[in-house]
């Protein structure tokens, strides 16, 4: 049996343990959280659309004819009965000394909401006159793509995949030590290096499927509820490329973080320590010199993300500094750089695996 066959046999035997480990069940929650958020958004939009369409939808042209200063009666005549119509009588905040009668004459505000099948328009009338018109799309594809990009970079890569890989890979050796079952692997005729690669492959397959799948699911949950024409155009242009790079970045994140946490599981007993150190390292990566930035997984992953995320101007300076991406690398150098970091870490892990001893009593 050659080493490649042994690696595959080990990986196959480990897969079910990795997928169904009670110790890392929460990994699924991290992977599916963005999908749940985008599905929730889509479901909410769908429910609203169905509910508002039950009433009278108006044409976009008629909506565009609504002007400031029109009376509520004129608007009703033009657009007909609204989806929502609320009237509030507010006590005015006028100075009583100037206008003592004001208290007896409450201010009348009327809110009407119309829907043209795609956009909702909120109209606000004061004293019977239209003073504000707010029009927005029920689903805004451009905006949702930016939201997705932000979620992917700031939640999925930095936290979801990071902690997910921590849960999966650190348990490959450390978890078996705690379960007092690691000796099973040490008592078969397999080099420790081969064992390490087999376990890494099992963790990688599981993590890549969970997080790559999670990225794709959330991407689809973001895209599919959008307007049909926009979605079609998207898939015919940049859509497939975006989908590919989001999935690739998620999977390469598993490659990089997986190797680091596998090594950490061999070298350290407490997973909290490598998690904190790694999180800090990744967070301050933007401040580090160029050479040091190359020793970060996040640095390469951010270079692979297809949509840049603009940080809001009003964001606190410290947070902005931490979230700002480091100088991006080209796609080929990002992929090669990440694989080089992974190879380096796996080599160190192999040395640790050769020295690893079974000592359940001290765990």
């Amino acid at each position, binding site marked *: 049996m050659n080493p490649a066959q042994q690696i595959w046999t080990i990986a196959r035997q480990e897969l079910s343990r990795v997928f169904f480990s009670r110790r890392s069940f929460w990994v699924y929650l991290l992977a599916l959280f963005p999908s749940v958020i985008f599905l929730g958004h889509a479901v909410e939009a769908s429910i609203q659309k169905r509910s508002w369409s039950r009433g009278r939808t108006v044409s976009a042209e008629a909506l565009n004819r609504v002007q400031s200063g029109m009376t509520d009666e004129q608007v009703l005549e033009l657009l007909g009965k609204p989806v929502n119509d609320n009237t509030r009588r507010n006590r005015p905040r006028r100075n009583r000394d100037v206008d003592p009668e004001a208290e007896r004459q409450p201010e009348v505000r009327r809110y009407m909401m119309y829907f043209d099948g795609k956009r909702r328009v909120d109209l606000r009338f004061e004293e019977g006159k239209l003073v504000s018109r707010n029009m927005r799309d029920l689903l805004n594809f451009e905006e949702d793509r930016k939201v997705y990009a932000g979620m992917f970079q700031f939640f999925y890569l930095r936290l979801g995949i990071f902690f997910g890989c921590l849960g999966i890979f650190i348990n490959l050796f450390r978890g078996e030590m705690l379960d007092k079952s690691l000796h099973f692997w040490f008592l078969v005729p397999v*080099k420790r290096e081969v064992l390490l690669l087999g376990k890494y492959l099992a963790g990688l397959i599981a993590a890549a499927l969970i997080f790559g799948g999670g990225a794709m699911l959330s991407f689809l949950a973001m895209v599919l509820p959008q307007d049909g024409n926009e979605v079609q155009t998207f898939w015919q242009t940049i859509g497939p490329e975006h989908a590919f790079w989001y999935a690739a970045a998620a999977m390469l994140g598993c490659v990089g973080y997986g190797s680091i946490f596998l090594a950490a599981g061999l070298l350290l007993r407490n997973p909290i320590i490598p998690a904190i150190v790694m999180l800090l390292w990744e967070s301050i990566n933007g401040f580090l010199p160029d050479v040091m930035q190359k020793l970060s997984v996040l640095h390469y992953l951010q270079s692979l993300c297809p949509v840049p995320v603009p940080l809001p101007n009003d964001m606190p300076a410290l947070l902005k500094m931490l979230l700002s991406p480091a100088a991006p690398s080209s796609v080929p150098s990002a992929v090669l750089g990440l694989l080089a970091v992974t190879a380096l870490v796996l080599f160190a892990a192999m040395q640790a695996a050769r020295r690893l001893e*079974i000592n359940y009593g001290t765990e």
Partner: protein
Amino acid sequence: MSSTEIVFDNVSKFYGEVLGVNRVDLHIPPGITSLVGPNGSGKTTLMNLMTGLVHPNSGVIQVRGLSPYAPEKLMKIMGYATQYDSGPRGATGIEFVSTGLLLFGYSKTDAQRRAWQAIERVGLTAAAKRKVAGYSKGMRQRIRLAQAIAHDPEVLILDEPLNGLDPLVRAETIALFRDYGAAGRHVILSSHVLQEVDVFSDQVILIANGMIVAEGQIKNVREEIHEHPSQFLLHCKDASKVASLLFAESHISEIKLAPEGQGLLVLTRNRDAFSAALERISLSGIDIDGVIPTDENVDALYEYLIGGGR
């Protein structure tokens, strides 16, 4: 180094500041070898060192010419049944044994066939398709033994293999060890009860506090044990009369009254002579209601062997 022996050359192992074994020199020939010592004496450490589960701080170990640092070679000739189950969670008996065999290079069919043979050998065929999690302690011992022998190893290492076995299964298991030993293989097993293993072992290694205190063929160790003073509690009505008769025997080292008037505590250097003396006293008409050995355990023996006698 010999390619037919297991050799420890000045091997020491420490767990941090705690001593595992210290400066162990051993040449273990093929056959049945029992490692005997009290809990914490270093038996499992010696076994783990042989199998490469732990590494020595100093010294060299060779198992039939192979280094424990090369598991890809060593484990082809070695089977180790540890104190812990080592199989997939939720596995049935047959899965427990066959899973590891796939990594020996056997096809799935061959692995199944070998697993069934091993399970049959330990008498667990009827339970092979039940989950190991539901096995009794004795059944777990046997399935671990099946796992260790399934690839037909030249070196079989077993950590307390007779624990929890009923007398019938124990006899069958010992027969299996004898078969292996007679075939020129190594069978190394641990126990903390010397009387349990001395009947079938070719050689015994006594270990205490991480050091080898006696080793060799079982008859040599038995002679050492034979000289070990033993203490007995004699239940008798006329304790002073019995004491005076026993004091006349040269092999008696000490006699004292047992607490709460239970009888006499007698220390003898010769069990056979002591038995004969008791028989004579009984025949003379003095009642002796019971004879209970009070220190017939391996700890007392080690105390004697390490301390050089009382």
